């Protein structure tokens, strides 16, 4: 029983990171209809940047993340402006192929700037708490709390601010939003800035919780999309629920079945969900 709770808790920590990645993907998809596959590699770039800030400049973990997030946001805006906007009116496949090209460029850039060695971001949160037989690493709690506050902040931004309102307006009906005077180009930039900043934070958390290495970004992008498919396309609650479901099921699979095949099992769950409910757990029919 304790073992089960332990695994569920571990799953919630990694699941909250999946949620962060998926949230960035879902705002971009919901508003621009782009499957922004390069998101994972951008997140890795952010993770590496956090690592550099904390080791070479001696900044604390959170100060490094806070410094890396705006850099990521600017990169996201540049990507939107230079790569995605020119193909906005072309078939969606083109944007996806551009995303693949961007992934190659970012992965190549990460390799060139930060090398091929695995990197782990050191944090001071090394304590382990004992709650009646269940051991909780402080780092996992920090990851969960950080992810929850970021998700809350973005939700507030989207639901309560005027900018958030225009973002949601474009998501609901692009043409009507344009007619109401919403600046779609500005909204696109904002969406990419938010999404990339979230990605950077997720990359930093991954770097602290697991490790940064070439190829990790791609696998996180795939996980993020798996979450979207699980939760339902373009749905914020779906992204949150889907992330936690994926994290917990993966953690249970690793604990009770086989850790080498945990990714295989989580993808099988995604495919099963597709078979039974193609619209996802929280998606509209």
């Amino acid at each position, binding site marked *: 029983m304790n073992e089960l709770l332990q695994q569920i808790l571990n799953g919630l920590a990694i699941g909250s990171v999946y949620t962060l990645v998926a949230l960035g993907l879902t705002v971009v998809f919901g508003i621009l209809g782009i499957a922004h596959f390069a998101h994972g590699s951008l997140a890795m770039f952010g993770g590496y940047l956090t690592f550099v800030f904390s080791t070479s400049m001696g900044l604390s973990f959170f100060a490094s993340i806070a410094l890396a997030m705006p850099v990521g946001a600017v990169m996201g805006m540049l990507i939107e402006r230079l790569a995605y906007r020119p*193909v906005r009116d072309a078939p969606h*496949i083109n944007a996806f*192929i551009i995303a*693949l090209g*961007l992934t190659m*460029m970012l992965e190549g850039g990460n390799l060139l700037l930060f090398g091929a060695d695995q990197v782990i971001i050191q944090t001071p949160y090394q304590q382990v708490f004992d709650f009646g037989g269940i051991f909780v690493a402080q780092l996992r709690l920090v990851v969960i709390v950080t992810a929850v506050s970021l998700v809350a902040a973005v939700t507030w931004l989207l639901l309560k601010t005027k900018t958030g309102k225009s973002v949601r307006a474009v998501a609901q009906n692009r043409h009507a939003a344009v007619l109401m005077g919403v600046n779609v180009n500005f909204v696109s930039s904002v969406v990419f800035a938010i999404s990339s900043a979230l990605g950077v934070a997720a990359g930093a958390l991954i770097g602290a919780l697991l490790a940064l290495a070439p190829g990790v970004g791609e696998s996180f992008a*795939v996980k993020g999309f798996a979450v979207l498919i699980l939760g339902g396309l373009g749905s914020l609650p779906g992204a949150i629920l889907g992330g936690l479901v994926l994290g917990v099921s993966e953690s249970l699979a690793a604990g009770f079945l086989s850790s080498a095949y945990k990714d*295989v099992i989580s993808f099988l769950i995604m495919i099963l969900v597709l078979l039974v409910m193609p619209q996802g757990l929280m998606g509209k029919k």
Partner: protein
Amino acid sequence: MKQLMSHRWMLSVAVVAVALALPHLFKSPYYIHLMTLALIWVVLAQGQNLTQGFVGYVSIAQAGFMGIGAYISTLLTMKLGVSVWAMLVIAPLLTGVMAIVAGYPSLRVKGHYFSIVTLAYNMVIFIVLMTFSALTGGEAGIPDVPRPSELTIGGHVFSFEGRSNLNFYALALSAAVLATTCCAFVLHSRVGRVMLAIRQNEDLAEAMGVVTSRYKLFAFVMSSILAGLAGSLYAHYIGFLNPEPFGVDQSLNIILAVILGGSGTLSGPIVGAVSVTFLPELLRFADSFRLITYGLILVVATIFLPKGLVPLMATLWRRLRASQPMVAEHKPTSKA
């Protein structure tokens, strides 16, 4: 139109003749090796083009299916002693069976989501090839994969041993011709027209009473059969097998080949496959910038050359001919 068709036939025969003559012109074993690989890539890219170019569904699992074909072919020849020649037929068919199982659930989702699901397949295939080392040898791989046995035709003995083997080159060329011919037949059949209709407007095609899922599954399975053939050829050509060439990166390269050549055309994948095989060799000087350069080419090509090299060359050629009034009698066609 008929005349145009016969022109196209002549062009195809000329291309094959040039392909046959090339290794005799460039005697360097290095070029013969690269050209053999390029021909195997033509098979792969023609398969990819069926889903990506004709139906408009970008699958990111082509390298994974190539891997399935390669491993089935290798394991059955080495563990059960099946002949390589038989495996060149059986491995693609078994890969096709796997594709039916994989394609059925994934084709329920559209557009990007189909791509992501196939990407997940490729990752699953890669993880299994890496982890299930009792059978696949894991990362260390399987050495000494056999070449096809000698053929005796009319007293002549054709051996397939040795690097840059001209007989193997001819074998790869026949596979490439076979793949291209199959795709041409599909494209000009009713099935092909339905596929193009799905690409243009799937909802409309469905409303006209077409069961689109069947055609999508057909394209996906046929594409995987070609990937399996390419995988089998590759394994028995290179002679050493590990999971590395069957990762997601390679699937992206195959997509690049189709885009660069011209997706939805028959000659595009050929041009694309040759470019993608030779481009990394040309970009050797770029060394650690290679991945970035590659990605940049993909992005720039999609923005400025969304139709690929072949339609671009066709347009230039037509303009050139249009400036000479003597031969301007052919109506330009949009399909290459």
